[in-house]
């Protein structure tokens, strides 16, 4: 959307609208995550499902690192460094993908093999709904990052005009922060049941 | 100034009229048949007064303005110019606030009265299930009507077997939802009936198709009558099979779903059932003999009468009915021709 035909002044005005809009959307989304946490504490109290600790720690670390690279990507773009930007955002994309595979491809299968299926009581329900909701956000996030990457390659963004990159970054950080609340709630708090 | 005097007088008159001649004169509430109802009705009275006042206040000012200040023909001018008055605004924020605090206080007092516990309360277990009420007395007597002694606090301990229901007798005023889910979800309600008479329990939470007909009779009787009634309710029946069968059918609420007249409520009617050929939903037919009927009671979902829903009838009768009782029920069904 590098609409160069729009004068910079207008672009800036639009940019500030966009920023506010995005933050409002995240505020709204945060309510879902908060409500899921409430649901978790009401239904499971001080118990938690049995999950693979190593894997949990691993993917959490991955996601945090990906956030770092996302930040790099945005900074590079702001300085007009096209190459650095592409590299950093590609890494973010790959890390995000690994996280997704880690949750859905590995953790879900592991849990299933331990008998923790979606219909296995509250623990199963909570586990799948929380990770599932989060994974849905991760999927949209990496799609978004992929689009930004492709557009970046086409040279759509410049140092002054890269709202797409910024939006992807803010969204990705949000997904990351949401996980920072989910991770302890699922993996660390309370005693294991089942 | 004269405007305010007139409006003030009109407001008071209107408040008085509304309160005296409409809200407390008309019969608005059913009769008061429990001690809890007294506290609640007193609170209602306070509300009627406040409603009368605030409704009159706003309406009188509004109607007065409409009548007195309306634009006269040909007058194109503007109204008197004032933009607000902070003192007034503060007053009409603080005064309602104080009233609100007062209502909240009276409200919690009334709630405390309603919930007042008598340690010697007489305990009755209420079991609600889709469209049926069942009551269990302390020594195991069960009944499908609720009979209560007058002037004793009754502690109802209530649970549901399927969805949420709600216990309500308008004359007692109080209401409590009944939740499924065992011990943890048992909810209590306390009632002290203080009027003799017959009332109705009306399930007040939407519970599916026949919610509207989920009623049960309540009788408040004297202590001595209550003792007599209770002794009649035990699970012993020494009469002939058909009469006893009829008793179990009434007690277990079968007739909520099965008519004896050929009319279809939600289950098949029992009229002429015995010995007939019953089409099943898998396309086969069976003869409705003892075997079939017993199976229909113990495992309702197994042989489903065509055109009916096999999951509606509770599968729990096998646990609550003894083998002898089932035999007697079958004898009873057999007798309905």
């Amino acid at each position, binding site marked *: 959307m590098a609409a160069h035909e729009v004068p910079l002044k207008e672009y800036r005005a639009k940019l500030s609208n966009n920023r506010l809009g995005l933050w409002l959307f995240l505020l709204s989304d945060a309510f879902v995550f908060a409500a899921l946490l409430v649901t978790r504490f009401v239904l499971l109290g001080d118990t938690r499902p049995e999950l693979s600790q190593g894997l949990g720690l691993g993917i959490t670390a991955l996601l945090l690192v990906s956030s770092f690279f996302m930040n790099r990507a945005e900074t590079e773009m702001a300085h007009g460094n096209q190459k650095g930007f592409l590299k950093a955002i590609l890494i973010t994309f790959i890390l995000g993908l690994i996280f997704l595979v880690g949750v859905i491809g590995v953790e879900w299968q592991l849990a299933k093999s331990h008998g923790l299926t979606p219909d296995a009581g509250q623990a199963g329900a909570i586990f799948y709904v929380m990770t599932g909701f989060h994974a849905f956000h991760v999927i949209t996030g990496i799609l978004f990052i992929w689009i930004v990457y492709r557009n970046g390659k086409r040279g759509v963004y410049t140092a002054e005009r890269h709202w797409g990159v910024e939006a992807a970054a803010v969204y990705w950080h949000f997904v990351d922060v949401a996980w920072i609340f989910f991770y302890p709630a699922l993996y660390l708090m309370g005693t294991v049941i089942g | 100034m004269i405007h305010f005097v007139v409006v003030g007088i009109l407001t008071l008159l209107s408040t008085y009229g509304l309160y005296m001649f409409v809200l407390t004169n008309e019969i608005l509430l059913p009769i008061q048949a429990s001690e809890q109802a007294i506290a609640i009705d007193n609170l209602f009275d306070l509300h009627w007064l406040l409603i009368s006042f605030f409704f009159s206040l706003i309406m009188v000012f509004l109607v007065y303005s409409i009548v007195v200040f309306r634009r006269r023909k040909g007058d194109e001018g503007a109204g008197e110019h004032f933009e607000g008055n902070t003192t007034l605004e503060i007053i009409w*924020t603080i005064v309602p606030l104080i009233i609100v605090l007062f209502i*909240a*206080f009276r409200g919690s*007092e009334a709630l*405390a009265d309603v*919930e007042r*516990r008598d340690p010697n309360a007489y305990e009755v277990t209420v079991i609600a299930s889709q469209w049926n009420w069942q009551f269990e007395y302390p020594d195991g007597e069960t009944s499908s009507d609720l009979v209560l002694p007058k002037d004793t606090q009754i502690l109802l301990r209530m649970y549901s077997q399927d969805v949420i229901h709600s216990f309500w007798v308008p004359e007692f005023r109080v209401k409590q939802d009944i939740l499924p889910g065992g011990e943890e979800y048992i909810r209590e309600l306390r009632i002290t009936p203080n009027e003799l008479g017959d009332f109705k329990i009306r399930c007040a939470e939407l519970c599916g198709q026949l919610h509207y007909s989920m009623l049960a009779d309540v009788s408040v009787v004297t202590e001595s009558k209550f003792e007599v009634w209770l002794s009649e309710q035990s699970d012993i029946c020494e009469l002939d099979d058909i009469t006893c069968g009829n008793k179990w059918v009434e007690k277990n609420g079968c007739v909520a779903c099965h008519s004896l007249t050929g009319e279809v409520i939600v289950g098949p009617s029992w009229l002429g059932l015995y010995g007939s050929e019953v089409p099943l939903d898998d396309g086969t037919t069976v003869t409705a003999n003892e075997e079939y009927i017993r199976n229909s009671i113990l495992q309702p979902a197994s042989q489903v009468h065509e055109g009916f829903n096999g999951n509606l009838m509770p599968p729990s009768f096998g646990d609550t009915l003894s083998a002898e009782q089932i035999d007697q029920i079958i004898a009873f069904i057999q007798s309905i021709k």
Partner: protein
Amino acid sequence: MNKEIVWPYLKRFLIILLVCSVLAGVGSEIAFRVQRNNIDRGPQDIELIIPAGTAAKVAKGQAVPSLPEEMVFIIGDVLIVQNEDSETHELGPLLIPPGTSASMPMKEVDNLALGCSFQPSNYLGMEIKEATTWETRLLAISFVAPPTAIIAFLYSLAIRGIDPNEELAEEKKK
């Protein structure tokens, strides 16, 4: 958002919230006194009487209606068991000869099933809870104070708005 703009509003809101919390605390305490349910009460002595003939009934496997199978206490309660039966009874650590009584203080939150000779099941379930405590009170305040504070804050703005310039000037004076 500019810090200079937000802070004066925040400051006023926080002060009002504080005041409202105190008021809410007082109010809810009054409501509490009015309310009183079984776990919101001070510690009490609770008496349990084992009636005559209990042992005989229990031996036949019958329950004694006046003896509960489950009891709920709050911390600080003292259970006093009085034995009016003709035989010695036991309840957990207590040994109660006929005609005497023994007592048991409730010290901590627990859910017990004590061995007991006056129940056909041989057990008496006891749940010891904390009396409705600061937690419930806090919860109550957290539902009452914010809405009150919101209203008070908004109308305080209508009465006297915040002028950021004025605030800044004042800051500078200091």
